[in-house]
């Protein structure tokens, strides 16, 4: 089976600081792959490279057999990749519904977009209640739901999630991870960045452990979760 996403030897610098050193990651269609690691390991940087928000100095990113490096962020979305950024980044001055509609900005099948909108409201009933409210007035958990629902509005094949559990109560985190599993069961491939390694490894099929810009462990999630070194460093 050909990989959906292949990241080869990615090197990224912020000025003189090297944030990624030869990172190689593959994601097969239908998988949930998680990228774990402590603060500053380079997880967000990896996702921002895929979305073309930053340029790597070396390496390549192949999606569906074609390099993404010459594409703009909006073209990457059209290719079927949706990125739920760290900190949610909902558009606070627009309504919940307008946020969702903008998630479908790259699409032109209006009728289907309306159907998908209703689908998000079924999946996230709280958003249906809040649809005409300004997104900035939502709670943290609701904002995370909105960010995910908004990403789904582009009908992605690959969903990039950057720390969806950040700052949320355990019960909300459980909800969100349940939704991630459901989406995956429906056919969406997921690349999940998390600091909550325990939960991420329980959810994912495979995982990569990143430390100071390098992949130090990789393997099946079930193996990583039992690995003594991973346990000691990341599972407390």
């Amino acid at each position: 089976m050909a990989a959906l996403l292949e990241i080869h030897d990615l090197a990224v610098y912020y000025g003189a600081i090297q944030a990624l050193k030869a990172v190689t990651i593959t994601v097969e269609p239908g998988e949930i792959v998680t990228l774990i690691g402590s603060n500053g390991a380079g997880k967000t940087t990896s996702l921002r490279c895929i979305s073309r928000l930053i340029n790597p100095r070396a390496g390549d990113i192949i999606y569906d057999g074609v390099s993404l490096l010459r594409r703009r962020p909006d073209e990457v979305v059209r290719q079927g990749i949706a990125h739920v950024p760290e900190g949610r980044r909902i558009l606070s001055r627009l309504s919940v519904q307008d946020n969702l509609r903008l998630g479908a900005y790259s699409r032109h099948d209006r009728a289907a977009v309306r159907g998908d909108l209703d689908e998000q409201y079924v999946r996230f009933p709280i958003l249906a209640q809040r649809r005409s409210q300004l997104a900035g007035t939502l709670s943290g958990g609701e904002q995370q739901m909105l960010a995910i629902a908004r990403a789904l509005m582009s009908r992605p094949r690959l969903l990039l999630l950057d720390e969806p559990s950040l700052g949320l109560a355990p019960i909300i985190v459980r909800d969100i991870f349940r939704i991630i599993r459901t989406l995956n069961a429906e056919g969406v491939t997921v690349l999940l960045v998390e600091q909550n390694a325990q939960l991420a490894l329980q959810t994912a099929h495979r995982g990569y452990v990143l430390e100071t810009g390098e992949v130090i462990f990789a393997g099946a999630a079930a193996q990583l979760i039992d690995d003594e070194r991973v346990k000691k460093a990341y599972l407390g």
Partner: protein
Amino acid sequence: MNLTAGFQIIVNGMATGGVYAIFALGYTLVFSILGIINFAHSAVFTLGAYFTYALLGSQFGFNGLLARGRLPFGLSFPLALLGGAILAGLVAVMVERLAFRPLRKRGADPLLMLVSSLGVAVAIVNIIQYLFGAEPYTFPNILGGLPGSVNLGTPGTPLVARTVQLLIAGVSLVILALLTVYINYTNTGKALRAVAEDATTASLLGINTDRLVLLTFFLSGFIGGIAGTLVGLSVGITGPYFGIAFGLKGLSVIILGGLGSIPGAVLGGIVIGIGENLVPAEHVGYKDAVAFALLFIVLLVRPQGLLGRTQIQKV
């Protein structure tokens, strides 16, 4: 003060204020997306007036490269107004491509872009002088067979207004209404607001931010060009520096209303427009002082402007 005088203050105030509002919106649109004041906007305003003048088929002045020439055709006023606005919009697009984008892509300090826009303004003013000469231009009568003034009251209680002022007020209000609908209710308008709030996130939603920046400049130039034509109709084109004084007025409008706020620009325009027209005719020389006095007083009480957000900051 009798009824007619009061009515005229309102009509003239709406005409002046409406033009201020659409002109100031040109600054606001660019500011809300890029966080900079585009000083070239006042030069585009001037160009809009010259473009419309030319498209009407009127004869150019006695100086400049185009001296005594005229276009081989003449459009009706509505078409000339539209054409002038489109050309002004295209010039604004060129300004973005040549003066702003190269700096933006290098992550230049906003102050540099500001200086760059001033440079463009000076260049445009010089090109205008080279082409059209430094003399004032007066628009031909564009009212056709319409009377110069109309009575909207009854013969007993007349409410007389100059037709040109009514036209200016009407065109400004239509533009304001269209722009409001466009920005608030269309998909592209929502995308513009998304880019204004957070360009990076907007790009993650599939929005081509560079294209929307171009659209913003086009809209800003388009409405700036219309404002230029309307002011030109009212007082004539005073020369290549036509837009500079007006540009200062536009800046006080957006600061009064609140930087980056679209309703603020509209409110600021109307407040200053009506304020100026309250100045009695015998003191007309103090008209310009009104804008700055109003600005001064409002900023003492509300430093963020009438409808500005509490903090002016760009993240």
